């Protein structure tokens, strides 16, 4: 019978219970969905890395078969493979990072279409995203050009490779340009003998092929392939550093040995997971927190409303336990159904949407959300809290004797709280103002919960929109303030001085060079970094930590980015000891200033300073404002980067972010709306008898509605005042903590965002209040007043 009562009571208070259901469901959906997406990201990559045997170390050369043998003989090395990587172009003027390999046991292909790698097969295995963007199918033939090689290759497979989840031409490109840039693999058998011969002849300074053939009688071109790297698979990953040291000692050709964890593909993907971890905590935490606040308030009040019925049941002889279990059932079943629905929707809707967005960004197969066990625990905690709240509230009522319980409890008003409102200052206020102030003072908890809910939602909206603003600001800072050029030309490594001069004459002399270095700290510990050497005048500019453009750097020392300085504890005047990869000579440089770089935490210096150290300056990049929109190829230039295209690339990333943030805003608005609605119902129910009295006294519906809406408007306005700055601080905190180590930017939120968030929050609150206020018209004075008796 009590079950019947429970279902009928729920039906009677359906809107309240629906609100509780929705709040729990949305809270759990947001939490489990974001968590499932982040865990899905992690599990997807773990599986891919492990099944496709991602390398542990990448030894950068040029390297030979002898080096390969030496590395394979090192203790704890499971396997190693040679690779020649070059930036090739296609007949469509696209760039391919072309890799020639002998075998494919390390960083194995995941073949989406076509066949497995076979060194004896003539053809090309192509980046799946690149194929999709360019409508290339297995069986098509493409032309690949590199130096003197022109290879017509049949596409044998569309692939994903574990070290190519994320590829950009260089670090100035933030978003992969899948249409114009991809990766490709071919067997080393495809490298032409002519090409290798020309390289060797150049090296030997022989111009006549006949002379070369005479000298190199047993020339086997395969022995002369200048492999660019060796991928190493280590048995015991914990002792990877030992292997690294051994390679350093034994392989002279090794210019650098890079841990997989330091490669851009790995770092970027891992960064996304790490960022996500913070977002999971913050966004889903806020969603759950504000939902729980509202649920606790609602459940407490729902049970308190049942006071007389609890007394009746007790008077009828029901045991306290039975009564408690009956009421716990209210919240228990609702929260169980809400949690299950939330978990299902979280996984299938939020998890899938988010992961699919990521999978369009990262080239990784079988991306799927993964339900994390913590989502079940959180659900159990939510159910437990709801049951506990009912238990505590019910137990307090049951402590009283039935006779007492059967009497309606008159709400206590502590005079001293309200006395303040008797002061002269308050006398000026209208009746509804003073009435609302006192109602708030009487119902501090309910008001606080309402405030917390709306503040939370306003904060989330500011944060979500603010993240977009900040990203837009970052793009402006990077591509308009720091990069003050239209085109960046990446100069070929083997360019000669006279060829360089030709470029200078045509495109100007604004150049830069990047140096891979290792910094040695006081304890001898070495860490990889890079130096940006500028001779680019104001084509590449520097900003201070307030984003103001700085004067040109001077030639007396080095500049360190603020974030690197703060991470490493560098101060102005400190000396940094460093060496260039492939050269064991150490240099000591004094820090003479700091600069802000939103995407690279490194060291900068001028060409003159570099040369003062005795290091030859050979630029790798040339900056120009000459219009190159119709230029496809420049001699001795590997790639031409158009700044506008770089910006467009960012737009792609921003659009993915936008979709995610719109979802978050959507959830925030819905949850906010439900919380306001729910607390509005509570507040309305508690005031209904007073409204009925006012109605009897002759107050018009409109007057009563205004009283009700006024209080909710105040709460919304105060919440907005609190929510706007909180939104800023949350965004700033997210950017400063959650994003990868090499980024440095904080929140930059526009006035427009604050206005939209404020108006949006207010409109949601106002509409919900207005909707609830419609009830005033339907107040049945007789029933309301009787009910109160």
């Amino acid at each position, binding site marked *: 019978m009590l079950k019947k009562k429970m279902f009928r009571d729920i039906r009677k208070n359906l809107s309240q219970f629906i609100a509780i259901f929705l709040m729990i469901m949305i809270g759990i959906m947001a939490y489990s969905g974001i968590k499932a997406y982040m865990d899905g990201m992690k599990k997807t990559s773990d599986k891919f890395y492990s099944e496709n045997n991602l390398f542990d170390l990448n030894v950068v050369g040029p390297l030979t078969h002898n080096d390969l043998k030496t590395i394979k003989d090192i203790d704890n090395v499971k396997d190693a493979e040679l690779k020649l990587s070059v930036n090739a172009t296609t007949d469509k003027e696209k760039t391919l990072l072309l890799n020639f390999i002998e075998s494919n046991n390390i960083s194995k292909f995941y073949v989406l279409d076509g066949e497995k790698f076979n060194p004896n097969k003539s053809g090309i295995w192509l980046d799946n995203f690149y194929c999709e963007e360019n409508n290339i199918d297995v069986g098509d033939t493409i032309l690949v050009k590199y130096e003197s090689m022109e290879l017509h290759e049949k596409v044998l497979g569309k692939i994903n490779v574990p070290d190519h989840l994320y590829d950009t031409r260089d670090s100035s490109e933030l978003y992969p340009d899948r249409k114009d840039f991809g990766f490709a693999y071919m067997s080393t058998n495809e490298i032409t003998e002519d090409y290798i011969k020309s390289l060797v002849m150049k090296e030997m300074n022989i111009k006549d092929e006949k002379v070369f053939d005479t000298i190199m009688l047993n020339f086997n071109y395969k022995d002369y392939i200048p492999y660019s790297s060796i991928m190493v698979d280590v048995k015991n990953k914990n002792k990877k550093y030992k292997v690294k040291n051994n390679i350093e000692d034994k392989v002279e050709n090794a210019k650098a040995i890079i841990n997989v964890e330091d490669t851009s593909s790995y770092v970027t993907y891992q960064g996304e997971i790490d960022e996500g971890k913070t977002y999971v905590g913050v966004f889903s935490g806020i969603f759950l927190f504000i939902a729980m606040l509202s649920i606790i308030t609602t459940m407490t009040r729902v049970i308190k409303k049942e006071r007389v019925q609890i007394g009746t049941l007790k008077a009828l002889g029901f045991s306290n336990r039975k009564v408690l279990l009956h009421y716990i059932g209210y919240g228990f079943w609702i929260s169980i159904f809400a949690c299950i629905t939330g978990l299902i929707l979280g996984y299938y809707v939020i998890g899938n949407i988010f992961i699919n967005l990521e999978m369009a960004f990262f080239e990784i197969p079988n991306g799927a959300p993964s339900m994390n066990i913590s989502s079940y625990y959180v659900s159990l905690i939510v159910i437990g809290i709801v049951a506990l709240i009912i238990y505590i509230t019910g137990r307090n009522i049951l402590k009283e004797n039935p006779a007492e319980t059967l009497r309606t409890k008159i709400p206590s008003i502590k005079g001293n709280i309200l006395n303040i409102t008797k002061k002269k200052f308050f006398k000026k206020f209208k009746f509804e103002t003073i009435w609302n102030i006192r*109602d708030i003072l009487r119902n501090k908890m309910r008001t606080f919960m309402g405030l917390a809910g709306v503040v939370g939602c306003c904060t989330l909206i500011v944060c979500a929109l603010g993240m977009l603003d900040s990203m837009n600001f970052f793009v402006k800072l990077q591509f308009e303030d720091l990069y003050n050029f239209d085109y960046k030309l990446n100069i070929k490594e083997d360019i000669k001085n006279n060829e360089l001069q030709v470029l200078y004459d045509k495109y100007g002399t604004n150049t830069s060079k990047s140096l891979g270095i290792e910094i040695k700290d006081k304890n001898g510990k070495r860490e990889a970094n890079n130096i940006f050497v500028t001779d680019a005048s104001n084509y590449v500019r520097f900003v201070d930590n307030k984003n103001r453009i700085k004067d040109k750097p001077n030639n007396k020392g080095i500049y360190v980015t603020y974030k690197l300085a703060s991470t490493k504890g560098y101060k102005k005047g400190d000396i940094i000891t460093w060496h260039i990869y492939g050269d064991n000579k150490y240099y000591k440089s004094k820090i003479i200033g700091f600069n802000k770089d939103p995407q690279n935490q490194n060291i900068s210096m001028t060409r003159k300073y570099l040369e003062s150290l005795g290091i030859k300056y050979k630029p790798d990049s040339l900056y120009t404002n000459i219009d190159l929109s119709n230029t496809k190829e420049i001699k001795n230039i590997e790639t031409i980067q158009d700044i506008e295209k770089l910006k467009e690339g960012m737009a792609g990333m921003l659009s993915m972010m936008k979709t995610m943030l719109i979802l978050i805003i959507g959830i925030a608005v819905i949850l906010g709306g439900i919380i306001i609605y729910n607390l509005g119902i509570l507040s309305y129910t508690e005031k209904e008898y007073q409204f009925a009295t006012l109605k*009897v006294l002759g107050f018009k519906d409109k007057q009563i509605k205004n009283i009700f809406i006024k209080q909710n408007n105040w709460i919304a306005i105060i919440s907005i005042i609190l929510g706007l700055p909180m939104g800023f601080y949350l965004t700033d905190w997210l950017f400063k903590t959650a994003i990868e180590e090499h980024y440095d930017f904080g929140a930059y939120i526009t006035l427009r965002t604050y206005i939209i968030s404020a108006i949006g929050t207010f409109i949601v609150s106002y509409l919900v209040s207005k909707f609830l206020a419609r009830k005033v018209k339907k107040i049945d004075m*007789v029933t309301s007043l009787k009910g109160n008796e």
Partner: protein
Amino acid sequence: MKNFIELKNVVKTYVVGEQKFNALDGIDLSINIGELVVVLGPSGAGKSTLLNLLGGMDKATSGSIFIGEDDIAKFNDKELTRYRANDVGFIFQFYNVMPTLTVDENINLIKDVTNTSKDSKEVLKSVELEKHADKFPQELSGGEQQRVSIARAIMKNPKVLLCDEPTGALDSKTGVEVLKLLKKQSDSDTTVIIVTHNSLIADIADRIIKIKNGKVVSNEVNKHPKNIDEVKW
């Protein structure tokens, strides 16, 4: 005295589920201006329903309810609101004063609904609550709270004062004080209608109406109303 209130064949039907039930079943009655009327009847007789219809809190299913020249049974919601604001004062068994407004504020509340309100200080004085003007209802006794309710009702200078068990929650002594105040109002030409179970109160009335099963059983003028001080329960 002329008939100020006149009910003609008033029916009020409630529908509960599929069942209909007449709380008032064709009531006819007349009340003169300035009379102190006591409506008696057992529980469920239809006393409160009658009061609600007279107060414009509910609508009759059929029949006419004339208050002065106006048939309030024909009033729409807007007209009823105006009627409640200007012409009727309500006094409840459980006072229904606004808990978050002080005594003074509860009384002055009426200024928000009518322009014909009395001077609040005088009203406070008339119910002897001047000393408590700044207190919240919670700080007052039941009798004092009921006096606040009366003060609020008379503040608008109503034509009719409707009282639903006004002494129901009070002890005898306090009840007598409340009745005195009500009598005072009827002496100043306000028609006071008291609905009660308590037949002893009927002795002070100018008119006694008895209701049973939604019908008027008797409607008699009390030719010799007792002095309130003589009433005890």
